[in-house]
């Protein structure tokens, strides 16, 4: 089969789903946006914002890079043998790679995936061959420049057997005008492989964001995802799903979500523990400012014996006009599973503030220490300098609040 045939088979399904709303989040009318290529030609002038989402244009400590502006790939590089980083359009010229093309995520998931499929132009393709450890991260930058555009990258990441890969994706918008980002991502982690995927978002207050992500995690393999959204958005809804299909596989999803302005945010995650002895954890920290609405969902399904799953949703409400919902869900289908959850939403405890002021801090400093503490999630699995970088982002985030 070639790409054309594959697309021809999927097209009717996508067309039928063009009006299908997503189960969660603000329903958007796609006709308000256009799905062109956009006029963005490069990343020039965006160094600062890209740095804030983890992209180093000098490629220090990076084993590969991919930059996309609007719907056009502008740069890609690879610095390690056994590692492929290239635009999707090029990768799909090799029919073998069609094995990963819309195989994890159905095109008719909702209107956003349907539109992304029908208007598909580009995205990144990152693959690590079997038995290769890529210890410095690959970075992918998705920059939205053209007002009114739907940016819909289709990304595929494949980690071969007994291989290891770290990806950091930084997404940002250059303007305050409206736009829609639909990042479609399909991850495949094969037997004994490890993928850590870190994503940092810095959008604008008129941007709508609808990432769609599905991961398949094979036998004894590990999938770790860390997501941080720091900026105001118009609306953001995402709900990555990881299928733990292989025995003994593990997954860990963490999200840090800051609701600012009038942002409407609905962020979740699902772990399907389908094979024996799988385990997984979903963890979220949400902060509500201003008039933002933040919904944190987490769902773990245990379908095989010996699986363990845990959900932890914590919210910190810093404005009376803001709203945080935490919705943990557990579903057990066989007897021998262990699923647990904890959820808590609160405000900054007066007692803690008082204590820190007694320790010599100003009230603002005390607040930032408490918020920073709240944002401390275990940045598990990451190479040291990437973990440090994220800690730094959280430090400056907490002190700016």
């Amino acid at each position, binding site marked *: 089969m070639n790409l054309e045939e594959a697309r021809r088979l999927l097209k009717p399904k996508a067309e039928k789903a063009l009006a299908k709303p997503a189960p969660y989040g603000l329903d958007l009318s796609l006709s308000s946006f256009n799905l062109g290529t956009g006029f963005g030609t490069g990343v020039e002038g965006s160094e600062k914002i890209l740095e804030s989402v983890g992209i180093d244009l000098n490629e220090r400590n990076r084993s590969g890079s991919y930059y996309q502006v609007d719907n056009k790939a502008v740069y890609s590089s690879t610095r390690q043998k056994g590692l492929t980083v290239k635009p999707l359009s090029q990768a799909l010229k090799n029919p073998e790679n069609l094995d990963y093309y819309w195989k994890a995520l159905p095109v008719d998931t909702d209107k956003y995936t349907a539109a992304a499929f029908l208007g598909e132009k580009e995205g990144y393709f990152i693959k690590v061959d079997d038995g290769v450890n890529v210890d410095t991260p690959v970075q992918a930058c998705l920059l939205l420049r053209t007002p009114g555009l739907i940016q819909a990258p289709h990304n595929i990441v494949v980690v071969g057997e007994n291989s290891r890969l770290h990806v950091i994706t930084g997404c940002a918008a250059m303007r305050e005008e409206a736009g829609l980002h639909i990042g479609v991502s399909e991850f495949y982690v094969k037997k004994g492989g490890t993928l850590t995927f870190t994503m940092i978002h810095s959008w604008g207050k008129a941007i709508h964001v609808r990432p769609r992500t599905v991961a398949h995690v094979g036998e004894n393999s590990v999938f770790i995802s860390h997501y941080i959204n720091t900026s105001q958005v118009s609306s953001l809804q995402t709900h990555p799903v990881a299928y733990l299909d292989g025995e003994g596989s593990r997954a860990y999803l963490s999200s840090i979500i800051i609701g600012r302005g009038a942002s409407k945010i609905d962020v979740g995650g699902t772990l399907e523990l389908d094979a024996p002895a799988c385990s997984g954890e979903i963890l979220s920290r949400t902060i509500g400012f201003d008039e933002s609405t933040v919904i944190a969902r987490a769902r773990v399904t245990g379908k095989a014996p010996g699986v363990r799953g845990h959900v932890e949703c914590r919210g910190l409400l810093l404005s009376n006009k803001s709203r945080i919902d935490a919705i943990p869900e557990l579903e057990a289908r066989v007897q021998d599973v262990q699923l647990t959850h904890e959820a808590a939403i609160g405000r900054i405890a007066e007692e803690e503030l008082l204590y820190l002021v007694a*320790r*010599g801090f100003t009230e603002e*400093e005390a607040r930032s220490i408490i918020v920073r503490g709240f944002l401390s999630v275990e940045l598990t699995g990451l190479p040291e300098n990437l973990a440090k970088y994220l800690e730094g982002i959280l430090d400056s985030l907490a002190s700016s609040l």
Partner: protein
Amino acid sequence: MLYLKGLVVELGGKTVIKGVDLQVNREELALLMGPNGSGKSTLLHAIVGDKRCRVVSGSLVFNGAELTSLTMEERVRLGLGLGFQFPPRLKGVRLRSLVLRILEKKGLSKDEAERVLEEYSRLLRLEGLLDKDFNVGFSGGEAKRAELMLTLLQNPLLLLLDEPDSGVDVENLALMGSAISRYLSSNGRAAILITHTGYIARHVKASEAHVMIDGRIVCSGDPEEMVSNIMEHGFEACVNCRRAKR
């Protein structure tokens, strides 16, 4: 250094401190003893400016400055430091980072701060706790040692310690006592130390002891004599003695 005159303090709508006079001078360590609920903690909190403790009347003078109208932030800046009886747990805030932030705020360079942290954590046997969240999963004794370390590192002129000895084993009491003594011997510091049990009194050199009952200081005198009397007869003896005085 500190001079209280006719201090009356309300907490949660109830008068807890009912007219306290107290003076503590440079290089002095005052022990404050008394049964549960007598107002000892409220007194220290009122001195440091905890806004829940409302000063109704009386005066509170520290190094010549009237404190009553000052905020806690301002009082701490003047040199008051309170070691809490029950410091809160701070999830996600590691003991190490809290110490370093306190020291950096004191103007120490990063290297100096690291050095002081190492010295004090060794002195108070806290090395193993530095990378844990503050007070999360600390034993009673560990929490007391950590609290003492943070209070000392603030370098206050007047150290206010609220039951630093409760739940601390004998060996660590000696450790804490020597840390407090060492601190007080450095130029002109003073302290008020609440002790319910009197255990810590064996390890520090107090200049005076005061017994507080029902919001009033009912007895002041030689610390050794008073501690041993109280250890032997309990506060019941003080209550009776006070009645006898009337």
